[in-house]
């Protein structure tokens, strides 16, 4: 094997190795995110049930009334949830070959469909509506 061939092989192996490591890191990150979502899930559901938080057409949660953000717990949960969603959408977009906005829109549709009656949903016209 010539020097040039050896060098090319080394570079190819390195590139493959880096790609593999990146995939493993992303899979690990998804697991971490899932744990965070799961840990927050009950609290978020509770806030949705009392009408303080709701799902938006953009795939994120938001306070149904701005005043609700005066509650530090509501604000914290919403901020953390949305930050993690943003990261998840980026990861899934990379995996599926679409944009993070596309993933967010699919998740919004999914959340609108599975939301129970009584929860507030923010539609594309910017209006919050209680699901009937």
């Amino acid at each position, binding site marked *: 094997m010539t020097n040039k061939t050896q060098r090319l092989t080394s570079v190819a192996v390195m590139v493959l190795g880096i790609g593999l490591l990146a995939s493993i890191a992303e899979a690990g990150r998804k697991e971490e995110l899932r744990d965070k*979502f799961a840990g927050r899930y009950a609290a978020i559901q509770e806030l949705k049930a009392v009408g303080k938080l709701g799902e938006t057409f953009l795939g994120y949660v938001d306070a149904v009334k701005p005043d609700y953000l005066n509650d530090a717990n509501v604000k914290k949960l919403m901020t953390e949830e949305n930050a993690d969603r943003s990261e998840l959408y980026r990861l899934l977009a990379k995996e599926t070959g679409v944009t993070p906005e596309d993933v967010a829109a699919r998740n919004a549709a999914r959340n609108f469909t599975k939301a129970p009656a009584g929860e507030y949903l923010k539609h594309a016209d910017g209006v919050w509506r209680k699901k009937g």
Partner: protein
Amino acid sequence: MKRMMILLVLLVSAAGCFRVKVDPVEVKPITLNVNLKVDRQLDDFFAFEKTGAGAATTATSTQPPAAVK
């Protein structure tokens, strides 16, 4: 020069007689497949919601009438 002009006019006139038929580009199935792929990824990721505490909620209509003031 005059001949060239006549030739050019004839060519331009003839161009109007040609019809190029282009088949419509079919993008819907691809979009659908990508959406299904994304939906499956999301369902897999959020699978804990179905088993998690307080997750048992029934889906109903997505067209609610009442607006929040």
